[in-house]
């Protein structure tokens, strides 16, 4: 098997008000099912050593954890090369239980936006209140980024991680780069 290649092969934008870079491939698994059901929470715990996240929240730290996508769906993050084993483990743990587990590691692209103005860069593209008071660590938000769907959370006070569809990677990277261009600081956060 060849070396897996991320959508933009690790693109980087620097020199603006915030830095933007593509995050290396990550294991991502979509799990759909009754999130309240013990079978499911147990299965999740077994592969994550963590709980099913609460609505609108994520348990992701570094490149592991889960994020709440909708009342019957979570997104599980793990190392890229652990995706298939995690998938298998989940399927095993959920055998005979009505749930859907699929590997979407290759269907996505991830970026980080970092720097004190990161909230403002994101605020140029997403119709979300990103003031420090309103958007805090541990929140997970699915929304619109300019003209495409995206989801993001805070890695630290001034770093966002953004997930989008793989085919949109270049567009999203370009958007974030334009929004980070020099001289475009807003100065409200």
């Amino acid at each position, binding site marked *: *098997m*060849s*070396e*897996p*290649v*991320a*959508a933009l092969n690790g693109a980087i934008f620097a020199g603006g008000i915030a830095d933007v870079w593509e995050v290396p*491939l990550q294991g991502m698994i*979509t799990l*759909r*099912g009754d999130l309240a059901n013990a079978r499911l929470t147990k299965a999740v715990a077994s592969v994550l050593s963590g709980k099913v996240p609460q609505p609108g929240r994520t348990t992701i730290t570094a490149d592991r954890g889960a994020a709440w996508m909708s009342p*019957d769906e979570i997104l599980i993050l793990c190392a890229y090369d652990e995706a298939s084993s995690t998938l298998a483990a989940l399927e095993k743990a959920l055998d005979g239980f*009505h*749930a*859907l587990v*699929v*590997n*979407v*590691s*290759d*269907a*996505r692209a991830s970026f980080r936006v970092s720097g004190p103005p990161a909230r*403002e860069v994101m*605020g*140029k*593209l*997403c*119709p*979300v*209140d*990103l*003031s420090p008071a*309103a958007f805090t660590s541990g929140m997970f938000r699915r929304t619109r980024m*300019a*003209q*495409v769907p995206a989801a993001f959370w805070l890695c630290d006070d001034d770093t966002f991680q953004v997930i989008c*569809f*793989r*085919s*949109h*990677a*270049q*567009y999203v990277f*370009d*958007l974030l780069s*334009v*929004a980070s*261009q*020099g*001289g*475009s600081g*807003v100065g*409200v956060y």
Partner: protein
Amino acid sequence: MSKRHSTGGRLLNREKALHFTFNGQKFSGYEGDTLASSLLANDQMLVGRSFKYHRPRGVVAAGAEEPNGLVNMGEGGRFEPNQRVTTTELFDGLTARSQNHWPSLEFDIGVVNSRLARFLPAGFYYKMFIHPRPFWKYIYEPFIRQSAGLGQAPKEPDADTYEHFYHFCDLLIIGGGIAGLQAAKTAAKSGARVMLIEQTGHWGGRAVVDGGMVDGDPVDNYVEQTVAELAALDNVTLRTRMMGAGVYDHGYVLGYEQLRDHLPGSMGPRHRLWRIRAGHIVTATGAIERPLSFAGNDVPGVTLAAAVRDYLVNYGVSIGQRTVVVTNNDDAYRTAFALHDAGLSVPAILDARTGLGKTDMRERAEARGITVMAGHAVASVKGGKRVTGIAVCKQEGAGAVVQEIACDAVAMSGGWSPVVHLWSHCGGKLQWDADHAFFRPDADKAPTGDAGQPFVTVAGAANGALKLADILEDADAGARAAAAQIGHKIRKSKSPVAQREEEAPLEPVWLMPAEAEVKLRSKAWLDYQNDVKVSDVQLAAQEGFESVEHAKRYTTLGMATDQGKLSNINGLAILSDALGRPIPQTGTTTFRPPYTPISMGAIGGEARGEVFQPLRRTPMHDWHAAHGADWEPVGHWRRPYAFVRDGERLKDSVNREVLNTRRNLGLLDASTLGKIIVKGPDAPKFLDMMYTNMMSTLKPGKCRYGLMCSENGFLIDDGVVARLDEQTYLCHTTTGGAERIHQHMEEWLQTEWWDWQVYVANVTEQYAQVAVVGPNARRALEKLGGMDVSKEALGFMEWADGTLGGFKVRAYRISFSGELSYEIAVDASHGLALWEKLMEAGAAFGVMPYGTEALHILRAEKGFIMIGDETDGTVIPQDLGLDWAISKKKEDFLGKRAQARRHMTDPKRWKLVGLETLSGAVIPDGAYAIGEGTNANGQRNVIGRVTSTYYSPTLDRGIAMGLVLYGPDRMGEVISFPGTEGATFKARIVDPVFYDKEGEKQNV
């Protein structure tokens, strides 16, 4: 003449001179100047020509309401027409040219229109230019268009960038005058998130020009202190050069921030359009002074009284050296005082108020030795390109001249109108205030928000409070009310107290003199830019254009770039007088966003060039680009239409790709095809509803071609469904269908069959998919090595998981070309590697990549339908002879009931057939087959149309598919397709399968 004084000019930095050009002539001004103030400082009183009569025009105002001072500004990629001189901050190197004249500003041929003014009253063009018919397009209209319009059209692409920004606050306060500042100060105490925006570069608005005392201090100090206090607060955001452009539903406000218009070329976006969502909005947008309607009130030098004051105090510029003040209220006296105190001559104040007694202001004027002529008015203004004097008459009467006064400027004031635009944008209603003769917001009829709550409060002059003390009180009260609206309490605290100046009441004066005869009325301007005069509005009324909307549209009053900021109320008053109806019953006009024009660039935001729209790429995109791909947009995807080799014409490339795929081996990037996982105990039942076919009977390991219809019966998508296991299917959709069909499935599962146990997931982008097509397909895959792809191990319409060349893949044995064909799916991150490996392995077997056009031809040769070609949203499967794919056993599926409707079962529906031109030529795309005669509307009867038509390199002839009346029953018949260039194409109706009718090749 207008000139700059050695002293004064609170906004100027006289240390820093700036240089600019106007009509090529070099001028200089100071930092802090506007283009208007610096032009006036250089005695450039003539700034433009009016829209209709090309009359010479000068600056009449000092702010956003200016109707005359519009210029072409900048060069090349930074050229922009219609820039308002009164709001353009001067910068070094600014270049401006005046507009709407030929050959020059001083001498304009178009002024002939002015001589003809009597023949060109309101709506004249509705009554003329009717005969002869062709003349309108070829003679009249071109002339009218040429003489109309204002600035030049930009020629080069915009050199600047723009952006948007989403902002959220509890309280948005619009307007940085003392009302806005005080409102912010009060509101900030509540702890709410407050934002205060000001359209100019300066805080304090009019008050700092007009002066006055607050808490015993000059108002300037109050402004300075308040700004400093607010800036220090964490819960307050202050922005200057940012206009509240529009108020929209549910507390949505557009903020138009001009970041670099005053320092063009510096790094960063030029404008930022803020999309602000506010819990509540306070508009503290002030008031605008009204002109007076007298003959010659448009001669350069006739200026709003407050503007005269602004230029003097803010910029040390006097418009005239001898200025007559004409007014119907006390405020204009301040202009007389300011001029007089600056050592300029004020020969007289014409106070039109007939009942004017001994007022405080009058005494202060006379104390200065200024003559106050009570009950007097301007009969007419002398001078053409600038004022040389005025004729005085009584306000009562028809305008008999009592004396003439030489002067070089006239400062006029007809009273003030609150700026209620933002209040009105989203439905706020107005009430007429007879005492002050203006419309003010009706607080009981505020715009309402998402919960039905009022979400706009008006404060200060915008709310009708015109005096310093009243403004501060009103602002404080407004802020409290606004904060309360969003659940914030503000503890009582003493609000600043301003010293009161006694003012005598204003007397409405809508026409000067009151009984002015028509000669004067037809020289008394209401709308300067659009050249609408008192006589025009009166004519509209006379002709029955009684509603304000009719009158405005008939006369074009208030339709110019200033949107009637100066003219609306004056025009309305004239109309109401002409109709003998009180003003409130005559109506008001609707205010539409934006408050002043905003750049299209800002509205477009970042969406230009590369990020105009998302462009979706497959993992192999760059490889295609590097190998001559000629792209075809499919939705937001780009797919190679063909891979063009050096020296090849596009159609040659397509033919080469088709032939090579038939003879050797072709590779197609099929990654864009939709792939949707459907899983659950009820998945079979669900897919039986989604597809017209029976999917529940499909065996794991097998594939089946399926059709999807809308509930309205029409074919919306097709694709191969693979059953992965008892409870799991993978459904392929068309490229355009992936998201659409995924959402279609979700919709039915969530809103109709929510008790069914089914989950779906769109995994389209998880996989790169490569179609390996042609007689050598199997050999190429075997060369890669890995899974068994023999006929026995992987039969036609079967799929299997395995490895190929070390790649973990899923191989589908399906064919859209009629050839031996495999579709190989691999994780997207390995897509490019697999593609390259296949090219490498295929080299020995004559592999070539092929694009979408070859794909179309290959399928057309086989008579396979294509969604979007054979279907167009009006076609049902039965039309396409796909009855075999419509389950008769199923009681129900989406579209079944619809397909039973009268018109759907009509035997007259056109049906799919193949078409072979007798000559072998290719029938043009979209051609129709003609029948006999014409229909009731005289249109030629048609009996069919082409849906797909190509040159088939395989058969070396034109082939086509089409929908034809009774088609399947007319095999062998010849029908005619007229082209658009005269030629007619005769074609024989044949079976749509042109190639390998037995289907042996795909089955080997």
